[in-house]
């Protein structure tokens, strides 16, 4: 099989071939590394490429297969890891100059788990400096480019992962999501991104800025693949107090059951208040499609979202604490955007932090109440499609909003609430703007009900206008 045909396949398609020994992990890894060689100059999606290690891992996985030790659907599958997740013995920069020489002693638990499942690590993926932003326009390692149009951002902060998955360089990537950094790139790159329930996946080994809402989550080209990757990384971690000791279900168990009889909540406020017209049209069409598939649409109201801006306050203070020693020792190594927003955090009063946490509690209660009446919520994943890399602002309804620094919360306003509530939320492709840039649909569910979200997403995936579409760069055109 030609290499491009191999790299265009999904994990669900490849796994049976590998299990049956019709396809070698070495062959698959070589095909993926060819994509890396061809597309890294276009996308700049990696900070560190691990050719030699990937080849070694592929050989080990092939040997395991020959010994009859099949490790499951990720066996021999090339993946990427965002460069703020620890990899033992491999540089982990967090997209910063400050930590450009950091080499962790051991793997993050999620990395250990995905390797145990047989995955092959192709490299460490580019991101926004300190994962603090939604552009992946990295001052130190260069901007990541969107595979659908290299003049545009791939979203952030897990932009390298989003670009790699969309461009068929990796079959999955582990991103991280503190305000939408998995779902944003999924939206902008036209892939599937899951931010599972807070506590479902260990954060141990993630270089977190705040313990209040950060997640490591899977990015893939299909819903079924996403469930497979989450299966590999989910589970209680006794050494991470943020994880919850609940059973890990079969995340694929509800795939194929359709959406008939399910109630979907459509928020009447906040999520649809500021939208690019192409985004609104695509999301409304997706809601109609879900209705045609049998889901019942119910309008719901979330009045507390009027105060959603306050949810960012704890993060400001958390950030300055996280950066304290770096600011003391390496202040000149920061890019200005991260430096000045971080320094502002030192002025947050404890009283305001406490108020913001109470607002967070009220918002959580409100979502919990609404999700008593409906099975899941449907919203846009982002107010806008991907903007140009050189843009300083995005325009909605004639108003300009900054894409970096203060006020940039507009770009993540649809995703960040689920970091505060901890609810599972995922982005799936639902069409394109008139400029040919992807648009995402966000599904939000009850705590620990990821299987239901996958069920809905899988049903919609079959009828999505994005189905079967690939960026031109995938095939070299």
């Amino acid at each position: 099989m030609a290499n491009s045909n191999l790299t265009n396949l999904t994990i669900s398609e490849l796994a049976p071939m590998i299990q049956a020994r019709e396809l070698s992990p070495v062959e698959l890894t070589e095909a993926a590394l060819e994509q890396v060689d061809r597309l890294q100059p276009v996308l700049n999606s990696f900070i560190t490429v691990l050719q030699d290690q990937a080849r070694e891992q592929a050989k080990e996985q092939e040997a395991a297969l020959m010994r009859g030790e099949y490790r499951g659907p990720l066996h021999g599958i090339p993946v990427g890891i965002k460069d703020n997740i620890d990899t033992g013995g491999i540089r982990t920069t967090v997209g910063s100059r400050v930590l450009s020489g950091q080499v962790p002693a051991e793997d993050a638990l999620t990395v250990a788990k995905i390797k145990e499942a047989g995955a092959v690590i192709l490299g460490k993926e580019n991101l926004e400096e300190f994962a603090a932003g939604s552009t992946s326009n990295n001052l130190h390692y260069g901007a990541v480019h969107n595979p659908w149009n290299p003049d545009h951002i791939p979203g952030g902060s897990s932009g390298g992962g989003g670009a790699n998955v969309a461009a068929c360089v990796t079959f999955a990537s582990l991103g991280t999501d503190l305000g939408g950094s998995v779902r944003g790139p999924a939206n902008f790159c036209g892939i599937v991104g899951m931010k599972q329930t807070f506590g479902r996946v260990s954060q141990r080994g993630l270089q977190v800025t705040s313990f209040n809402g950060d997640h490591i989550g899977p990015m893939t080209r299909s819903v079924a693949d996403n469930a497979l990757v989450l299966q590999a990384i989910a589970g209680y971690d006794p050494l991470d107090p943020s994880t919850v000791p609940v059973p890990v279900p079969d995340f694929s168990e509800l795939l194929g059951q359709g959406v008939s009889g399910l109630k979907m909540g459509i928020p009447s406020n906040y999520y649809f208040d500021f939208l690019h017209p192409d985004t609104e049209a695509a999301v409304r069409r997706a809601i109609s499609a879900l209705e045609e598939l049998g889901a019942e649409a119910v309008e719901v109201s979330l009045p507390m979202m009027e105060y959603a801006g306050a949810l960012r306050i704890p993060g400001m203070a958390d950030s300055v604490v996280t950066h304290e020693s770096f600011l003391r020792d390496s202040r000149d190594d920061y890019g200005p955007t991260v430096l000045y927003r971080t320094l502002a955090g030192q002025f947050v009063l404890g009283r305001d932090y406490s108020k913001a946490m109470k607002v967070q509690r009220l918002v959580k209660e409100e979502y919990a109440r609404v999700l008593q009446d409906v099975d899941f919520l449907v919203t846009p994943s982002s107010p806008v499609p991907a903007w140009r890399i050189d843009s300083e602002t995005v325009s909605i309804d004639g108003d300009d909003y900054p894409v970096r620094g203060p006020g940039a919360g507009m770009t993540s306003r649809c995703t960040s609430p689920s970091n505060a509530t901890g609810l599972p939320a995922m982005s799936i492709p639902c069409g394109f703007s008139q400029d040919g840039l992807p648009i995402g649909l966000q599904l939000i569910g009850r705590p620990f009900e990821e299987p239901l979200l996958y069920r809905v997403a899988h049903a919609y995936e079959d009828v999505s206008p994005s189905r079967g579409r690939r960026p031109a760069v995938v095939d070299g055109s």
Partner: protein
Amino acid sequence: MAISDETLRAMIRDFHGFEISDDEMELVRPAIESYLAEVEKLRDLDLSGVMSSRLLRASEDTASHPKNGGES
């Protein structure tokens, strides 16, 4: 709501904060203004009753839960 540079500098001095030059203060200020604007929005929101003892009033009728096929 505004806060003066003098107050910010006093906070840095008295609370062992990170020094900020005059030029840098201009670059930090938009994030501070954004924070203060959010705080201002909370001024009239009564948060005094938000306590851990206040339980969420959810339906206790499990049969009515949509997940169980009932109407809520």
